[in-house]
């Protein structure tokens, strides 16, 4: 009885779209452990009250990717795409940095909150422009957000007058570098936001309506769903989340680099969403999947550095991991293997992975 329940639980997990993402994270961690057996070791530094370890670094690095991936998964679910998130990150970071610099590098919490507020407001406005272009003007999402992607970096340059701008503000810095109950604040924040978005979307009809628009806009409109307001909301949310990511990103070094902050992050976000099992053609989406995808990309980036893969081979290594992952996810490729394995036993696949179970459970709840 209990073993039956266990295998069915396991089978369900294997069937989840982001299962292979989890496998890839574990595989990468194992690769790192092979290089250095102490890779997973986490120590507690009583002096600063923080946990120290490679895994903690991965969690911290994953926070901005998680944010934009969550926003992106909603946008993609409506059948759209948001290419502007990287540029919005740069704008948000630029606004925050310039404001704090003009405020005179104080340690005041008010200044930090003001900077965050204004940065998020402007990100929301940029998101709203995307939304209006897509929902009301009827431009293709790819084109409208491409415009914003190009314009955004220009806006960031105008805001900072083309210079990389630094500022100092302890509360702001704490968001990106601080620790709470031993864990990085950015990661806790990112997970909290992801959970809130997930709950709001899944506990209300919102998620269902977003999926309906993505699957069949015409049918959903006939069923009484007004797409315009929803689309606008989704693009604004994506903008705001990109703004949060921008704050996290510039906060780590307290410098905004207008040409590098958020550079090509939209591709990471799209990748994270795809790894999480959301189809680019729209429809069903998974916030949990996007989180797994974001964690995988952070793990991959850190692994490349830890293993010391040479700079010129880095893109190739990244591409290989992702191609393998996409092949594993592909229904068709998997069906070839199942067909070949049919005669002996159909359920051979699940029994190969029970050892990774505890970690998977943690990740899923995350």
């Amino acid at each position, binding site marked *: 009885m209990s073993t039956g329940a266990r295998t069915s639980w396991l089978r369900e997990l294997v069937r989840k779209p982001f299962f292979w993402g989890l496998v890839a994270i574990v595989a990468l961690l194992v690769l790192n452990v092979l290089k*250095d057996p102490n890779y997973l070791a986490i120590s507690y*530094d009583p002096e600063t009250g923080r946990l120290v*370890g*490679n895994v903690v*670094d991965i969690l911290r*690095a994953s926070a901005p990717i998680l944010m934009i991936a969550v926003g992106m998964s909603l946008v993609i679910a409506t059948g759209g795409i948001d290419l502007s998130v990287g540029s919005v990150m740069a704008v948000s970071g630029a606004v925050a940095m310039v404001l704090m610099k003009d405020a005179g590098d104080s340690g005041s919490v008010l200044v930090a909150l003001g900077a965050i507020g204004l940065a998020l407001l402007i990100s929301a406005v940029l998101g709203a*422009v995307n939304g*209006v*272009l897509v929902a*009301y*003007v009827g431009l293709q999402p790819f084109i409208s957000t491409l*415009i*914003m992607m*190009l*314009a955004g970096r*220009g*806006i960031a*340059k*105008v805001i900072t007058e*083309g*210079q*990389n701008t*630094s500022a100092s503000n302890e509360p702001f810095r704490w968001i990106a*570098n601080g620790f709470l109950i031993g864990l990085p604040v950015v990661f806790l924040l990112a997970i909290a936001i992801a959970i809130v978005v997930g709950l709001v979307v899944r506990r209300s009809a919102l998620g269902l309506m977003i999926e309906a628009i993505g699957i069949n806009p015409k049918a959903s409109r006939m069923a009484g769903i007004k797409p315009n307001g929803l689309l606008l909301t989704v693009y604004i949310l994506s903008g705001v989340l990109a703004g949060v990511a921008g704050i996290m*990103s*510039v906060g*780590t*070094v307290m*410098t905004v*680099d207008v*040409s*590098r*902050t958020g*550079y090509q992050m939209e591709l990471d976000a799209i990748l994270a969403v795809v790894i999480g099992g959301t189809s680019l053609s729209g429809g069903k989406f998974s916030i949990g999947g996007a989180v797994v995808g974001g964690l995988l990309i952070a793990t991959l*980036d*850190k692994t490349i*550095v*830890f293993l*010391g893969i*040479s*700079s*010129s081979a*880095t893109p190739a290594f990244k591409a290989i991991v992702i191609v393998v992952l996409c092949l594993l996810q592909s229904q068709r490729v998997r069906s070839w293997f199942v067909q070949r394995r049919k005669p002996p036993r159909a359920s051979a696949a699940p029994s190969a992975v029970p050892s990774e179970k505890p970690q998977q459970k943690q990740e899923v709840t995350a």
Partner: protein
Amino acid sequence: MSVQRRFVKFLGLAAVGALSIGLAACSSSGGDGASGGEGDDLTTVGFVAVGPEGAWREANEKNIQETFTEDAGFELKYAPATNLDQKSQIDAFTSFVDEGVDVILLSATEASGWEDSLKRAQEAEIPVVLLDRGIEPDDTSLYVTRIAPDNVEVAKEVGAWAVEQFPDGGNYITLEGPAGVGVVNERNEGWDASVDGSKLVEVAAQTANWSAEEGKSVTETLLKANGNDIQLIFAQNDEMGLGAAQAVEEAGLKPGTDVKIATIDGTLAAMEALAAGQLSYVHEYNPLFGETALDVVNKTLEGESVDSYIIVPSEAFDSPEAAEAVLADRQY
């Protein structure tokens, strides 16, 4: 109903309008600064430039524009590339030749593909001076001279400083720019020329894409991968070095004593960090060579010959005091 729809349409148009104004504002900042005044005794100089790229380039091109003024007897026609595109540079170059300017200054975005354009200038007897970036293949008969700081030489000096600082050897990591870029290869070449054969051991070399954020993230991981047993970080630009300094601090080490960080470029932010003891060594990559260019142009017009490669001297700063001395009037 129709009112609402019209309102919505208007909203959309307003958004598009706002966006296009924003775009226009971006592009107008890079407009040409050439004045229309056709003075009789002014020498016309066509400047095929790179345009907005970063703090270094901005300082460099501003310096050139401020040197070739009408007061100095020049009319400078500034033509920046659109989005670092070589095609737009070749177009600007050709129109300068057709126009018959007296001298052309060229900062090429791409090294290759300039032979035909340079030959046309030669046929029109217009001397061409290369600024900062060279051309491939390097045919010195096609241009008067190339004026630039020497990446290899600068990196060699950084390496020499490192070897001198660590006579008993030590572990170091290199933070590189994007793989395959000419600057990165040259800075690696110069560094290796000095450091090879010394007791310094390179434990890792990774790209951090010229960015402070990535510099910090990469350094953080490399410190952990080597159990904090790193004494020196060679960052190929200032930004990455500044990021690395923060990672070193967060790992509980002290930049300057536990880990020394050397960077190249010499921007204001790096000088401040050097003065504060965050960095240990900053080698300038001098963008201010307008005076040298002016000298070369004058000599060429008078028919004197100049060397085919003029190296712009760059200073090294190896102490907080040296940095403080120049902080006040740092232009970039």
